[in-house]
Structures are given as structure tokens and as C-alpha cells.
């Protein structure tokens, strides 16, 4: 295998942190190379340098033997390097072809572009209609738009950042087929993921980063996922263990809930019913954008629903706002950490006051007790091992995983009766994710009811007593999690919708 990209001694420093320290590795032509590491290990910085978004302070790169110093992403694309980001940059109100054209330097005529999109999507088994409006597409289809946008440039190296985090198992299979086909045609792929089983199934080589340094290289096909995870975190993993508990009293009941969100691109919840007992963890799977945000907002009280739709502890809470629900013990943690669960420019102390003033009695006569609030913030930081200089740090200065630990910790330490959390470990590194899951398990073991909305099926299978799936705003009937097969889950997540359409 000839060498395509060689990275030698790349170093990049930010104020106060060395994000990449003397990083070297190489990718062969037609190789699928995994980049593994915890949050903050420096993966993003590294690929940003390869894609021309950041410049290294030291070190150099070689592409096909020649010097490679991309000044910007345009230069990187011209050299044959393309990237699919974790967060899509698509305009919801435009159609697929228009979105693709916006990313091109010299877009061809719309009709020709649509034809080539069709051709590429057929060649690589990525079904996509160029005339559809992006706002109507599922997350998986949106990702296809991004991938096809890259493939139209005929890249030599395709960088993919956590591509499967938004996909159903079936969609993952389609993606992998596409990636293998690309590989067989000689395209190299740099694949970033937390999901070790995926990397074992797909990748030829893996480079493992920790704290900005390369700590190991391995052949993922012959290394166990556990070994790779331990290399990543540099310590033995703490595996959560589910102690099945007897079903307790009924805590939360949602009955025939219909809800139309204010946002026109939101998902309408249709006839959603669920029951949650004390000590139970209900896992709700499904691809993002199928009503998860809406379900959380009706449970948190940010959005109100019809009378009688939500009963908590025998009381109709449909008309109560977020703080009234907190007072009686119904706590939530939304998916979006920055800007929803936490205010980016505010300190951790202020962010602790965001939800905890009532249950932690942080205010008196509506005057905040900042001392008490700060000590609560410290308590969260300590109990959940949030890595930060202190409670005065702004929320935005924390890495995603650390902020998530803070957000979860803030709610868990308020001793909720029911805790609803959306994507608790999304974009969180393996060891932090294990801590968060353990905290949820402890919460349930202590008699609280927990609803975990997540796209990570392994996670849900690991901690849930019951499992249900959200699909286009419809919730399937919950089933016992134990014994469910991947195919059954896939059917619950995507198939239920097809059945409905066939009726």
C-alpha cells in the first residue's frame, strides 16, 4: 500500500493547552484509518489542521510525497482532501442540489448537478433525491447530502467525524457499504468515532490519541474494543452494572399526548403514551429529529400540553412550568448543552443557579445566595469529576464531555424523583460516558424513575429496563430491554413507520 498522507510532528498550542503535541502518523492509499481518543484528546484539532482550518505551530504534512500546507479548506479540497463534519452545515429551506451547489466553488448548472448527484448516489448506494427540501430529510439523509457533496469533488482522502452518531443500525450498514466501496476504489478514509465496535468492523489501522499525544497504534481487527478503550483513557474501564430492581410505584404517566411544536421544522408528537415506575430506567431510542427535543420540552414544562396528558406522582402537571415541575421533583436535562442546558458565557456558579435554586434553596425572598450557589457548583464539580479551573469558569470554556458531566451532575445532585435526559453521553468520551451511565443507574437504584433518550443503542441496552423507540413523533410500546435483538430494535426505530404507511 502506498502512502497517501504523512503527518510528522504536528504541534498546535492554544492559550493554556497544547492540543496536539508532536503527532505523527500516516495513511496509506485505500486505507480506512481510525482516529481514536477521548474528548479533548486533540482529534478535532488534528483533522482541522489536515483540512486547512488551523495551522500547525510545528511539524509538517506530506500528501503523496509532496509538501502539503493547506492555507484554507478550499486549498485542502483542491488537493483532494474532503471532510464530513459531525454537525451538518445545510440550509433547511433549500433543496439537496442547491445545498450541494452552495458548497462548490464553481457550481455547474442545476440540471447537470442534479444528474450528477443522482449518478453518484446510485454508484455508491446512497439513495437521495436532489429535488427534496433538506428540512424534510432525516438526519441520515442529511448526512448523505454532505457525503455526496464531498464525493462530487472526487477526493483522495475523506475525513469523517463521528458519522454514525445520528444513524439507525440499518443506515450504518448502508454507510459502511459506501465506505468500503470507496476504499476499494482507492480512496483513503480518516474515520473518527467513539464507537469501538464500528472501528473494529471497518478500519484497517487505528491511531490513538490521549491529551494531544499519540499513545498507540493498533490493528483494530485484532485488538479488542476493551483494550482500545483502555488505551484511550489510560486506565481500566469502569463497566456499569445493572441491578434489576422490583418495579415500584407509578411516578410518571403520559397519556395520548399530541403536541405540535412552534418551530415549523420541529417534529409533531403523535399519540405518545408512556409509564414510568420508581426505580425504572426507560430507554427511548431513535434517530435524532424524530421528536426527541419535543418530548423533552413537554416533559420539562418548556412547552405545555393538553390537560391530563402528563401525570406526575398522581398529579396532573400538564399546565405547570419548568420550575413548578422542579419543585415536585421532575427534573430534565436537554440535549443541547450550550445555549439550552447551560448559558455559554455564564460561570458554572451561575449555571448552577439556572435549575437548582428551588430544590437546593439557593435563594431567599428571591435574592440569590451566591455563596451557597457556588458551593453547590463546587459539589457538582467534585462529585462528577468535572475538569475545570473552578466554578468561576465560563460554561463555554469547558469541553463538551466536562460540561455534560456538570449538567447531569447539577440535576442528579438535586435528588430528582423523575429525571429525563436527552442524549446523556452524546460526544462524551468513554470514561466520562461510563461515569454518567453509572450515575443514572445509581439514581434509579435509589428509587427514582429515569428516562434516557439516546441514539446510542449500546448505551440504552446497557442501562434500560424497558426500551421504546421514537419515530416521526410516534412512540412504540415499551418492551423489556433484556433479550431484544438488534434487528428488532431497528424495526422499532425505523420499521414501525413503514408498517404505519402500509396500512
Amino acid at each position, binding site marked *: 500500500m502506498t502512502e497517501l498522507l504523512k503527518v510528522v510532528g504536528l504541534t498546535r498550542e492554544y*492559550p*493554556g493547552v497544547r492540543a496536539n503535541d508532536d503527532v505523527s502518523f500516516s495513511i496509506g492509499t485505500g486505507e480506512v484509518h481510525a482516529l481514536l481518543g477521548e474528548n479533548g484528546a486533540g482529534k478535532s484539532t488534528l483533522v482541522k489542521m489536515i483540512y486547512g482550518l488551523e*495551522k500547525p505551530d510545528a511539524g509538517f504534512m506530506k500528501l503523496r510525497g509532496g509538501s502539503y*500546507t493547506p*492555507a484554507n479548506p478550499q486549498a485542502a479540497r483542491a488537493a483532494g482532501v474532503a471532510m464530513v463534519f459531525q454537525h451538518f452545515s445545510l440550509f433547511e429551506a433549500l433543496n439537496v442540489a442547491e445545498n450541494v451547489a452552495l458548497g462548490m466553488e464553481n457550481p455547474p448548472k442545476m440540471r447537470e448537478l442534479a444528474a450528477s448527484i443522482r449518478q453518484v448516489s446510485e454508484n455508491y448506494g446512497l439513495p437521495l433525491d436532489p429535488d427534496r427540501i433538506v428540512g424534510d430529510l432525516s438526519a441520515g439523509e442529511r448526512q448523505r447530502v454532505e457525503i455526496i457533496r464531498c464525493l462530487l469533488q472526487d477526493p483522495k482522502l475523506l475525513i469523517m467525524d463521528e458519522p454514525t452518531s445520528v444513524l439507525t443500525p440499518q443506515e450504518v450498514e448502508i454507510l459502511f457499504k459506501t465506505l468500503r466501496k470507496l476504499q476499494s476504489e482507492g480512496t483513503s478514509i480518516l474515520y473518527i468515532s467513539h464507537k469501538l465496535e464500528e472501528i473494529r468492523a471497518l478500519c484497517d489501522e487505528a491511531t490513538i490519541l490521549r491529551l494531544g499525544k499519540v499513545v498507540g497504534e493498533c490493528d483494530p481487527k485484532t485488538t479488542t474494543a476493551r483494550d482500545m478503550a483502555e488505551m484511550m483513557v489510560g486506565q481500566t474501564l469502569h463497566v456499569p452494572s445493572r441491578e434489576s430492581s422490583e418495579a415500584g410505584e407509578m411516578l410518571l404517566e403520559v397519556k395520548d399526548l399530541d403536541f405540535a411544536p412552534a418551530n415549523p421544522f420541529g417534529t409533531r408528537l403523535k399519540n405518545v403514551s408512556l409509564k414510568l415506575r420508581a426505580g425504572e430506567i426507560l430507554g427511548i431510542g431513535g434517530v435524532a429529529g424524530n421528536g426527541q427535543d419535543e418530548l423533552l420540552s413537554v416533559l*420539562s*414544562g*418548556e412547552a405545555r400540553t393538553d390537560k391530563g396528558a402528563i401525570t406526575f406522582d398522581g398529579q396532573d402537571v400538564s399546565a405547570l*412550568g*419548568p*420550575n*413548578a415541575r*422542579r419543585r415536585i421533583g421532575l427534573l430534565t436535562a*436537554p440535549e*443541547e448543552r450550550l*445555549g*439550552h*442546558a*447551560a*448559558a*455559554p*458565557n*455564564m460561570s458554572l456558579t*451561575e449555571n448552577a*443557579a*439556572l*435549575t437548582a*435554586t428551588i430544590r437546593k434553596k439557593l*435563594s431567599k425572598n*428571591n*435574592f*440569590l445566595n*451566591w455563596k451557597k450557589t457556588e458551593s453547590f457548583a463546587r459539589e457538582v464539580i467534585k462529585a462528577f469529576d468535572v475538569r475545570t479551573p473552578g466554578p468561576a*469558569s*465560563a460554561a*463555554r*470554556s469547558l469541553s463538551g464531555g466536562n460540561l455534560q458531566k456538570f449538567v447531569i451532575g447539577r440535576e442528579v445532585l438535586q435528588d430528582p424523583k423523575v429525571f429525563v435526559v436527552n442524549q446523556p453521553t452524546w460526544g462524551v468520551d468513554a470514561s466520562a460516558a461510563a461515569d454518567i451511565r453509572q450515575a443514572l443507574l445509581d439514581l434509579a437504584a435509589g428509587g427514582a424513575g429515569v428516562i434516557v433518550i439516546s441514539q446510542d443503542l449500546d448505551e440504552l441496552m446497557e442501562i434500560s429496563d424497558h426500551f421504546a423507540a421514537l419515530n416521526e413523533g410516534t412512540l412504540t410500546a415499551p418492551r423489556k430491554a433484556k433479550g431484544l435483538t438488534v434487528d428488532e430494535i431497528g424495526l422499532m426505530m425505523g420499521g414501525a413507520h413503514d408498517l404505519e404507511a402500509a396500512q
Partner: protein
Amino acid sequence: MITFVKRPQPSKFWTIATPVLAVILTMILGGLLFAAMGKDPVVAIRTIFWDPLFNDQFAAYSRPQLLVKAAPLILIAIGLSLGFKAGIWNIGAEGQYIIGALTGASVGLALYPLDAWWIFPLMVIAGALGGFLWAMIPAILKTRFNTNEILVSLMLVYVAEQILASAALGFLRNPEGNGFPGSRNLSQIPAMSNPELISGTGAHWGVVAAFAAVVAAYVLINKHMLGFQIRLTGESPRAARFAGVKDRLLVVFCLGTAGALAGLAGLFEVTGPAGQISIDFGAGYGFTAIIVAFLGRLHPVGILLAGLLLALTFIGGELAQFMLGLPSAAIQVFQGMLLMILLAMDILVNYRVMIVNKEAA
């Protein structure tokens, strides 16, 4: 090549340093402007910033003027800053100021010639209420029909100006004024006047109210739940909703408080320094207060200092017109420069300036 790198957190140092730097830079650029107009820049800057306070000849007159001009600016800016912090843009303080003066003066004049101690307090309440109600128009339209408060509050300024003109010419006109426009002189009616409390300082009840507002706003913003909710809403509306903030109530509170404070400022002005309702009563305090609010970084103490600084440029500017023959437009350009430069310097609070050698990369 110069690039800007985002700081992990806003810099405390630059939050304080940028207004100072902006003032210095404005002095330099303003000096260049005055030099281009054929005036000695050093003399011009000295006339604006130094002479009003320390020149033997003028200070006796202009020093008290500082508090007289600063008080309404500070009072209005404090009210505006609450809304601005929450992302609620009340641009119509000028209108609320005028209506406050009108309602307060109307209540007083309706009781003329009664002489009782409670008349002035009653007028104060009526002034605050007038400003409050005028601000409720954009507030209710916004919460009910989702209209843009910037447009509605701004347009209501022009409505208020028309009402002012009709009052000065019509229902509030002094019956003993020989047909001249303008109301009775309230500052000469003991029961309605807002006198200088300490001779030679310019301090009247409006100054007291302004200082009280600074303290109250400081406590509200830093200690009270409502102040926290205001900041949270400005930082991140979605997080605020998650924290249980009732956003409509907040709109009503912020607009209402700003309106009431602007109304108070108008009442204190009409019963004191201005003395009467006249066609040109609206002197632009309501608009200048927007500059004061931002110059003071929406911080109560900052607003206090900014109000004094801007009052100084007003008085100094008048002095410069009078002494050096600078056109008033040049003074307005100078004040505009101050805001522009301050906003431009804002970038230093959240970004670091880095000089990058392009070749080396």
C-alpha cells in the same frame, strides 16, 4: 496579518480598559477632526473635557450643569440597560420621557393654584406612571402580536412629540402667557418645583433618583433572581426558558421599568431645569441615554460614569461652540465617534489580537 482569536472567557481587564481606551482614541481622532476644521486640537479637547470643571471663568456655571445633564441620562440609561441586557430593545425612551413630563405636569397644573405638600410627590407618581403606560404599548404589542419593539417604541417617540406640541400650544398653554406657546413655569410654583437641593451643585430630586436607581439596579442585577433571569435571557433565551423564565412577563417588566424611569426623568426635568412644557422640551436625552447605557457596558456603575462623561461632552461641547466657534454638528460627530469606537473596541473583550506571519504558516 492580524487575526482575532476567541477567548475562552470574556476578559475582565479589557471589559474595564476598553471604555478608557475608547475615550482616549476618541480624543485623538476628534482632535484630528478639529484640526482639519482649522481649530487647535489641544485647545478644543481641553475646552471640552477640562474647562467645564476646572476653568476659573466657567466652572462656577458649568460644574452644577454636569449633574443637571447627567441625571436624566443616567436615570433613563439604567432603565434601558435592564432591557438591553435581556435583549429587549427599547429605543423609545425619548417618547416615554416626554409623556412622563406631560402626565406629571398635567396632574400638577390641574390642581393649580392649590398649594399642598403632596402635590409634587403626586406629580412624581403621575410622571412615572405616564412613562410606564407609554412603554406598555410596545410591550403589549410585542407579547400579544409579536411585533418588533424597536420599531414600535421608536415610532411612538414621534407620536409623543406631536402630543407634546399640541399640549404646549393647547391644553397646557399658560393662560396668563399672552398667547405664547408653553405651559406655566412649574419651577416657579413652590408646590410643583424641583429645586436645587444643595446650592451650587446642581443636585435636584432627579439626581437623587438617578443615584438611587444606580444602587437599585446594581442590587437587582447582581443579587436578585429577576436580575439573574434578565441576564440569562440576554445570554441565551432557550436556556432562560428552560430555567423557567416567563419571557413575556420579562418583556413587560423591562419595558415598563425603563418607561417609568424615563417618565421620572421627564418629570424632574420639566419641574426643574426646563421649568415648563414647551414645544422643544424633548432635548434628545432619551436617545443619548442609549449611548450612555452602552458606554457604561450596561453596568450600573459604568452607566453612572458614562452619564457623567457624556454630560461633560455636552457642556464642554457647548463651551467649545461658544468659545471656539465649533459647529454643533462637529460636537455631535464627536459624540457619535465615541460610541462607534467603543463598540468597535468591544472585540477586545472577547477576542485576542494575534499577529500571524502568513509565510511561516
